[in-house]
């Protein structure tokens, strides 16, 4: 069978790739995609811990459900902000949205 550490390494890699995307991408929507990858890595960890360590309980599931809801809320608000900025300034590049930067 698969050892727990495989899932943990897999999710750590996915998390790091997502983090790189968040820090390095210019496009605001691509940054949101990086955040999605990071949240998915967290979910893999939660489900793996549930299955391997506490399989006969439901705590793990509640955490997974919360992460799903938070991801949906984050995308809804994030994309609305990107769209709102795009309508005003005709850009979706995070580097060009620097009105508050001195």
């Amino acid at each position, binding site marked *: *069978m*698969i*050892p*727990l*550490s495989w*899932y*943990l*390494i*897999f999710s*750590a*890699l*996915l*998390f790091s*790739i*997502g*983090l*790189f995307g968040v*820090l*390095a*991408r*210019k*496009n605001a*929507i*691509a940054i*949101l*995609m*990086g955040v*999605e*990858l990071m949240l*998915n890595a967290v*979910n*893999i960890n939660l*489900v793996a811990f549930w*299955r*391997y360590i506490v*399989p006969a309980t*439901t705590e793990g*599931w*509640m955490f997974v459900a*919360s992460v*799903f*809801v*938070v*991801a*949906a*809320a984050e995308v*809804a*608000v994030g*994309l*609305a*902000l*990107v*769209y*709102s900025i*795009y309508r005003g300034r*005709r*850009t*979706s590049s*995070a*580097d060009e949205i620097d009105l508050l930067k001195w």
Partner: protein
Amino acid sequence: MTPIQYFFLFTAGFTLLAALGVVTRRNVVHSALLLVVALFGVAVTFAILEAGFWAVFQVLVYIGAIAILMIFMVMLTRRNVADETYPEPFNDNMRLAFLAALLVFGGLALTIGGWDAARETMTVPLDYDALREFGRAMVSPDGYLVPFILVSVLLLAALVGAIYVAVLGNKSQEERE
């Protein structure tokens, strides 16, 4: 090595390749389409973990709603429909970001390597109807009724806020101008 291990390695491999594509592709639409592939790979991982409900839910929520919304937004926010040139995808902090990601991965890998529980393999067969128990726990006051209502309110607030920012906020801005 058992067949399920090969299958897991294959799934993890294509998920990670797709995720790398998401963060490195120049064309943001391609990024978004590869994001769908990566999310599907995560759904398959859930299925390997015998959490079929979350696998289906992942497809329904992430691919059916979130990824499609993202593709839609990428298409809406192009400067010009006929624009075939793609700007440089990375900002100036690219090297620093790479270093940070590498450090985070190194730290996580060290932690996992030093933890004995991580080496254990699954021994207990799952004869527990987690979905039914989870459904009961979500609506019982001894279970997760309060967290369930809290996340529902969070989602509602986010939806109202998103509609205000995207539609009504712009309208009032135009009126001011």
